[in-house]
């Protein structure tokens, strides 16, 4: 009985966490999928989103779940500018140049945040942070989920769905997918591919910033926070298959589950060791990710 509860609780924790990873990584996947650029600075936009969420909470009294929308809009436009002036010039450059330009961007953004926001850890206080929903209880055993995680998970789900709908059900989104699959043909259809790239980058970093604000109730904002999520985001995206939205969601849940279940058999200290081993093996055996694209 206790074992069953442990397993179920672990499953639940893994899924909740994975949903959040998914929303953080969807944007990275989008950027890669459309532009075939690996953006090493991507996690910094999560940090920016967290700070925007925190500022909205601190000065406007907005809950981070609402501040997330402000973060989305602000970083969307910021991302478009970054794409226009930094990313577009290197779209055709060798991969080394792409890698190190985005690494430079990582340094610049992290330290710009340090200069603007200072080094303090910024945390929000909300009533639901300490509340939880008990899904099932039997004797001393309980199956529960924290409200902060639940809200973040639902927001993540909603934003994932919104991105999916945008890409699949709108004219503009369809054009963006077309650009990612065959930019030449898309041009011939009348698609302004440069605009698509800019919007894809803006949206990609915007969604990640949205995710940053959404996790604010249980992760503290600081300029260096991005770095600790960077490798994790890449793991999610690679597991799911670079460039696919559904892949990022499945990859996110997979990483969440690997982390939570590995804690049952390994010391928690080694949870990322397990994760990275899975990551490297996935790359080796299925470079297209766990969720293969339909293309033959």
């Amino acid at each position, binding site marked *: 009985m206790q074992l069953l509860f442990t397993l179920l609780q672990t499953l639940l924790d893994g899924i909740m966490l994975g949903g959040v990873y998914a929303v953080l990584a969807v944007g990275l996947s989008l950027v890669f999928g459309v532009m075939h650029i*690996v953006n090493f600075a991507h996690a910094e936009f999560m940090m920016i989103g967290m700070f925007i969420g925190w500022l909205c909470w601190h000065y406007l009294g907005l809950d981070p779940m609402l501040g997330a929308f402000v973060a989305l809009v602000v970083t969307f436009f910021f991302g478009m500018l970054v794409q226009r002036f*930094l990313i577009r*010039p*290197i779209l055709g*450059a*060798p*991969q*080394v*140049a792409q*890698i*190190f*330009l985005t*690494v*430079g*961007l*990582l*340094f*610049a*953004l*992290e*330290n*710009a*945040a*340090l*200069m603007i926001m*200072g*080094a303090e850890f910024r945390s929000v206080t909300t009533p639901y942070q300490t509340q939880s929903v008990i899904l099932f209880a039997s004797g001393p055993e309980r199956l529960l989920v924290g409200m902060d995680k639940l809200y973040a998970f639902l927001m993540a789900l909603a934003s994932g769905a919104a991105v999916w709908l945008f890409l699949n059900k709108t004219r503009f989104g369809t054009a963006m997918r077309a650009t990612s699959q065959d930019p030449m043909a898309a041009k011939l259809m009348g698609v302004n591919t440069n605009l698509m790239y800019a919007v894809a980058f803006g949206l990609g970093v915007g969604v990640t910033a949205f995710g940053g604000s959404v996790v604010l109730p249980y992760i503290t904002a600081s*300029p260096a926070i991005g770095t600790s999520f960077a*490798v994790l985001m*890449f*793991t999610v995206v*690679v597991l799911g298959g*670079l460039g696919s939205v559904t892949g990022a969601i499945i990859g996110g849940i997979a990483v969440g589950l690997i982390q939570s279940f590995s804690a049952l058999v390994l*010391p928690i*200290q*080694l949870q*990322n*060791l397990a994760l*990275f*081993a899975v*990551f*490297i*093996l996935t*790359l*080796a*055996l299925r*470079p297209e990710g766990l969720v293969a694209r339909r293309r033959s």
Partner: protein
Amino acid sequence: MTRSHPLARLLLVATIAALAVVPLFLDPFGYALRILCLMLLFGALGQAWNIVGGLANQISLGHAAYFGIGAYSSTILFGSFGLTPILGAVVGAVLASIFALLLSIPTLRLKGHYFALATLAAGEMARIVANSWTSVTGGPVGISVPFRPEAGPWALQFETALPNYYLFFAAFLIVTLIFWRVKTSAFGYRLRAIKENEIAAEVVGVDTYRVKLQASVLSAALTAVLGTLYAQFQFFFDPDTIFGVATISVKMALIAILGGVGTIFGPWVGALVIIPLEELANSWLGNSLAGLSQFTYGVLLIVVILLNPRGLISLAETLRDRLSRRNGQ
């Protein structure tokens, strides 16, 4: 090299002579000497990375794993068994080679971004192991190289940094020489063929898998030896630093790339620019506003790549080509 211009050759000899003599006139404990040491160390690291990253275009972001293995191997063996770091370096090189071999099984067929990400993760795995395996590595607190002056030069420990400097200098020249030998040998031809067109290379008879493997192992072993030298110079390190993504892996690659990836003088130029640049940024801006120095560093990186994605040395090459053309070539 076959195309080297007499002026370039003169410059090369002058540089080496200057590097050999100048430290004698510097404070043997001093800051300038330390900066020169770090320049040579990172120049050599960039050069070691260049063998696999530059010649074969396998962009590794996990070389810190080899560096750390080298540093930990010699330090632990010296601390626990009194084994001279000279032999410790050999053990480290062997262990790093084994790690490179194991890592190559899943990664060597990967290309570009995928290879970079896989090696990044591998470097992180090494860090996690060093961090958790406290009984052997001392764990997150880090490890100090025991000071044993009685062991003499066999311990590679010196009162001043001058002998360290000459060790780094020798290492730098040796790694450069190895790189040059590799680049101009049949092996180098094969590596370049892989870099430029892997399928064509196979079809004209290059065993691409084997060649990449050899390059990885060589690069790993050299990096590990440099790890030992670093440990004997710095005397203290911890897992986060020695296996650092930004502090070691990315920096190694950056030095090779910024200078001009795959070129013999690329890492020289890279180290010559990056190490002093970091220092100047730190000493001028380090206290004016927290983060300003690192911010400047990042912005400079972006600017350099936007201006010239092929690296600084290509500027010199353009210049050289112009010169040689004028000389009636």
